[in-house]
Each structure stands twice: as structure tokens, then as C-alpha cells.
């Protein structure tokens, strides 16, 4: 269970507050106008943005003292999710051990993860030799190996076409189901939110609202969301 307890983020003249709970195993879309603070909210949970007030708790544990890499979560950014000078295998291996000193069993797990995302045999390639969709799959294979209970997606598939994006979201859903992960996903596309996330958090006007059923939210949008959706 993820608890944002009277959270307050201040960056210059920008303020974002949040005070809600996300149940374990939930898939939640984070929607709202651009610049409202969707990415900032995820960055705060991941440990990249300091909190002005409040706490972030995972299963009762305060995350504040934990550096980003030690938090019980994996995050995929909008871009730069792979190191361009490391092979696919090594990029995935980082999910098991950041110093890449993998034993035989761990190497086998890397190969299995690669196969799981449909990229068997491409382990020796560099990221630049892969398509955008394949790069996304490599990042997801790493998520699979890290096996953290919380997964944050900051629009990692925004640059992909609609069909490919849908395919990736299905893969995310499968992986989340396999690992039992709770997922927070920033989205610009109402259709993605409907397809992927039963719950949605609306970030608008300096506040992240508690999760609400996605379909109801999109069908009956509050004014800030309606303006963003163009209705």
C-alpha cells in the first residue's frame, strides 16, 4: 500500500499537494494538464524531488531516508532508460546487480527475462541498434528482474505509435500481474488510461486528487480536466 501522507512539493513558485492512498496491486493512471506536476509527483515518490512537507510510505515504511536506488520501486523515464554504451544484456543485468558481477544463475535469469519480453538472441546489441519498441522491452525486462513492488511509468512509451504503445502497455500489465506490482503511470492519452488503469489520479491546480475510477472520471470530468480534454 502506497501512502502519500499530506505531501507537499515546492519548486520555486510551483506547489503540489497530495494526500491519498493507493492500494497494493492497483494500476493507477496519473492524468491532467501538462505542467500540472504529474512527472514531479512520480519523481518525488522515486526520490528525486525533495519534499517540503509530508511523508511517502510503502507498507508503513517511510521512504524519506532511502536513496532512489534503494526504494522499493522501479521507474521508467520518458527517455534515456538505457545506457547507450552498454549491451542489452548488461543494461538488463543492472537490474540484478548494479556492479554487473553476475554469476551463472543470474546470467540465466537475464537471458530468461530477455526471452520473456520477446527479444531472445538480441542480448549482444547496443540500444541504438534496436527500434523504439524493442528499447522499451529491454527496459521492461530490467523491471522484471528488479522485481520491486512498485512500478512508476513516466510516459516511457509516448514516442511510440498507437498500436505499439498498446502492445507495450499490455506487456506492462502482464509483468505487473506476474510480479504483483502496484503501478503508477503518467498518461496524456485518455484511451491509454481507460485501457490500462482502472483508477486515475487527477493532477491539476496544484493538487493530486485521490484515485477515482477512470471511466467515471473521464466520462464526467471536473472543470480542470474537461478543459484539458477539450470538452
Amino acid at each position, binding site marked *: 500500500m502506497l501512502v502519500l501522507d499530506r505531501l507537499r512539493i515546492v519548486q520555486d513558485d510551483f506547489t503540489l499537494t497530495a494526500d491519498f492512498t493507493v492500494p497494493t496491486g492497483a494500476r493507477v493512471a496519473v492524468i491532467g494538464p501538462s505542467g500540472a506536476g504529474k512527472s514531479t509527483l512520480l519523481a518525488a515518490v522515486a*526520490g528525486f524531488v525533495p519534499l517540503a512537507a509530508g511523508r511517502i510510505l510503502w507498507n508503513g515504511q517511510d521512504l524519506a531516508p532511502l536513496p532512489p*536506488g534503494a526504494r522499493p520501486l522501479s521507474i521508467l523515464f520518458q527517455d*534515456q532508460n538505457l*545506457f547507450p554504451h552498454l549491451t542489452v544484456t*548488461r543494461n538488463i543485468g543492472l*537490474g540484478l546487480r548494479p*556492479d554487473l558481477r553476475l554469476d551463472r544463475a543470474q546470467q540465466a535469469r537475464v537471458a530468461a527475462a530477455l526471452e520473456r519480453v520477446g527479444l531472445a538472441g538480441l542480448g549482444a546489441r547496443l540500444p541504438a541498434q534496436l527500434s523504439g519498441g524493442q528499447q522499451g522491452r529491454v527496459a521492461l525486462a530490467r523491471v522484471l528482474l528488479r522485481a520491486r513492488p512498485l512500478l512508476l511509468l513516466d510516459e516511457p512509451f509516448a514516442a511510440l505509435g498507437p498500436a505499439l504503445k498498446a502492445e507495450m502497455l499490455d506487456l506492462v500489465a502482464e509483468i505487473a500481474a506476474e510480479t504483483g506490482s502496484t503501478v503508477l503511470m503518467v498518461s496524456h492519452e485518455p484511451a491509454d488510461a481507460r485501457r490500462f488503469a482502472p483508477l486515475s489520479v487527477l493532477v491539476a491546480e496544484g493538487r493530486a486528487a485521490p484515485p477515482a475510477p477512470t471511466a467515471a472520471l473521464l466520462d464526467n470530468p471536473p472543470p480542470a480536466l474537461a478543459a484539458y480534454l477539450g470538452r
Partner: protein
Amino acid sequence: MIGGRGGALIGLGVAGLILCLTLGTLAAVAWRAEAASGLGPADWAALRFTLLQAALSATVSAALAVPVARAFARRRFRGRGVLIALLGAPFILPVIVAVLGLLAVFGRSGLMNDALRALGLPEVSIYGLQGVLVAHVFLNLPLATRLVLQGWAAIPAERFRLAASLGLGPAEVGRFLERPMLRAVLPGAWVAVFVLCLTSFAVALTLGGGPAATTLELAIYQAFRFDFDLSRAALLAAVQFALCLAAAGLAAGVARPAGLGAGLDRPVDRRDAGSPWLRVQDGAVIAAASLFLLLPLAMVLLRGVPQLGALPGPVWEAAARSVAVALASTLLCVALALPLAIAAVDLRRGGRWLEAAGMLGLATSPLVLGTGLFVLLRPLVRPADLALPVTVLVNAVMALPFVLRALLPALRDLRAGYGRLAESLGLAGMARLRLLTLPRLRAPLGFGAGLAAALSMGDLGVIALFADQRTETLPLQLYRLMGAYRMDAAAGAAVLLLGLSLGLFRAFDRGGRGHAGP
């Protein structure tokens, strides 16, 4: 964080070491200088000459750089890239080799005086102020040209497109686009050359000298080496340091944005410069600059290459010593620069101070550093035993600013591009250095190491303070050969030195570029 807490501590330690070496040696020197009675007339003359030659060198270099850079900016021709790359060569060219080349062109029996004699005109001398000026312009015109050329390249193509659409000619383009850029760029170029010429030693040693053409740096050397007047050397060193510090402050103060804004990197289309007269003018400027910069080097090669087979044994020994010094100095410089740069990027608040500490080498005279180390270490070791270790250390500190400048932007980019990804994966400490920082920094590290190696290889400075026959480096050996008028052997040694300097630079630079991944 890239290096974590341990990395930041190492960086702070390096900064402390640099402070001790620069300010600490100065303090040692100042402590010795107390006994001195103040500056004598000869010392004032040295101070005046130092300022005069540096100001004149900077002015001439900057003034000549404008037409040369404009010609390069306006023209696209085959070999342009090669020529511009060659313009960068004098920076890593050993000064003593440049001097030898200039002597072959402008010296008493050089090409120019041969021609003047044939025409029945009076000869010109390359010694004294004019000689120092010619050498400094030769060594620094390329730097000034590159700085000004960067200014031209930074004018967005869209401005020239707009100028063309409004039918502006060369005069209007000059007034509205080029002059604001020059006003922003030229002071920086002037100060850069001025600072470099303030601490110029080898040029003054070979072409200057005498009461009328002695720089502070040369006066320190003479006080130390010939009179063994430590307190006078120390006093002069203190004056030199104050001068360098003031100049560095000046350099920091003159940077000023041109306000021409950013563009979308469209190709530049210079319709304003299409007239035949401007083409001829630019062609003549480029040809003259290339002749001035390349002819002395061609003369060295022409005279020296046939001598390579007959070089005396001590030259080869000196060459081996020089290579060892250059490699050790490069290793030390990189070992200092890397943790310092990482800590400077990591520590938000203290970072700027760490960077400034690394840049102190720019404001430090190598002879001051050497004198200070001598004062400090004299009770413990014989000076001749110090010659090579001190040279390694001083060369590393002097090259540090250039290596830092190569590393810092790359490290900042790395942090901006992959910092969060690395942190989210818990990639830290040595694993981060091994898997991320070093592989991604290969190119700037190779380039920086190449610069450090070439600068150290060609250095004729602090080594001259301490060396005896057993510890001569190749540049010093070359200087001795010139002093003994063994010009053939000198030319051969110069070619060897040139080859080794460029070879070391290229080896490191290429090593950094090889299979670094896309």
C-alpha cells in the same frame, strides 16, 4: 551523486593539494622574500616589459584574428576543415620548436633576411621585443582565431537568412551581426592571449633577454639559476603571481553575451559575402595566415628530417626521459582531474570552488611553483634529484585546467542525461565509475590526456631551473644545442620532439575515440 560521499572527499582532497601547490608554494616564496629590499630598477624593467609584450602580443593576435576568422567563417572550400584543425596545432606545439622554426624564417640567416639581403635592404632582427612579439603571435594567433571563429559560428544561420531577405550587404551585416559578436568575443580572446603571454618563459629565454627584453619569468629564472639570489627570485615570483591573479580576475570579468540568441542550426548561407572582391580578399587573408603559421614548421621539418639518423646519443636519452616525464605527468594530471571534476559536478554548492581550485594552474607561473617547491624541499633533497619529479608535478598542475575543461561539460551532460537512471538503479561508487563514467567519458578523457601529454612533452620551464646533464629533457637538450649553434642537430632534435608531442597527443586522443560505442 556520481561518486558518492567518498568521491566528494577525494575531490576535496585534490582541491586542497592544488591549493597547497599553488598558494602554498607562493607562501613559501613570500616567506623567503621578506629579506629582500624591494624591487630594483632591473626588476621594474622586467615588470614593464612583461606587461608591454603581453599587451602588444594580445592586441596584435586579436586584431589579426578578426580578418582570418572572418575569412574562414565566410568561405567553404576543400581543405578548410584540415586548415582549421592545423590552426589548433600550435597549442600543443613545443614552444622551443616554434622558436627554431621562426629563426629559420626570420632569423639572421633565415629566409626573410636572405631575401632582404638579395634586394639590398637592411636586415631585421628577431631578437628583442619584436622577436618575442612574432613568436607570441605565431603561438597565439591560432587560439585567438579559433575563439573568434567560434563567435562567428555562434551567430545563428537564421540571422544571416534574415539579413539576406532584407538585402543587407557586407557593411550592414558587419554592423548589425558581426560587430556585436566581436564586442562580446574579442575581449575574452585578448585576455586569454594576454594571460598566456604573461607567463611565457621559453620565448623570452630564447628570443628576449638582456636588460631591455627580460620578462618576470625570465628574471626569476636568472635570479635563481645564475645569481642564486633566492629572496630576489621569491620577490619576483610574488609579483608574477599577483599579476597572474589580476589577469585571471580580468578574464573572468570580460565575458559578455552577444545577445544574438539561439537558432535552429540551419546551414549558414552567406549571400552578403558573394562579391568577387571579397572572395579575393578572404583568399589572400587565409593564404597569408597559413603561410605565416605553416612555413616555420615546414622549415623545421625540411632541415630536421635528414638529421634524424645522425642524432647524438644524449638526444635520444633526453627523449626517453621526456616521454617518461610526459607519461607520468599525464597519469598524475588525469588522476587529479577526474575526482576533482566529479566532485565539482556532484557538489552543488561547493562545486564552483572546486572548479576554481583546479583552474588555479592558469594563474600560476610554473617557475613560481618550481621556486616554491625548491624553497620548501631544499633542506631535504638535492635540487638535481628534484628536477624530474618536480617537472612531472608542475606539468600536471599546469595541464589540469585544460583537462578539467574537457571533462566538466561531458560530466554535466552525463549527469543530465543518465544521472537519474543511474540513481534509480542504485549504480554508485566504483561500479558507476567503471560502468558509466569512464566509458562515457572516454573521448574527453583521451583528448584531455593527449593535451596533458603534449604540453608536458614540450615543456621548457621549470626543468630549466633544476636540471643538470643527467636530468635534461628533450626541450632543454634542444635549447642547449641551439645555444651551442649546433643547428643541424637542433633541427633533428626539434623534429623528434615535434613527432613525439603530436604522436603522444594523437595516441591518447585516438585511444579515447576508439570503439566508445554510439
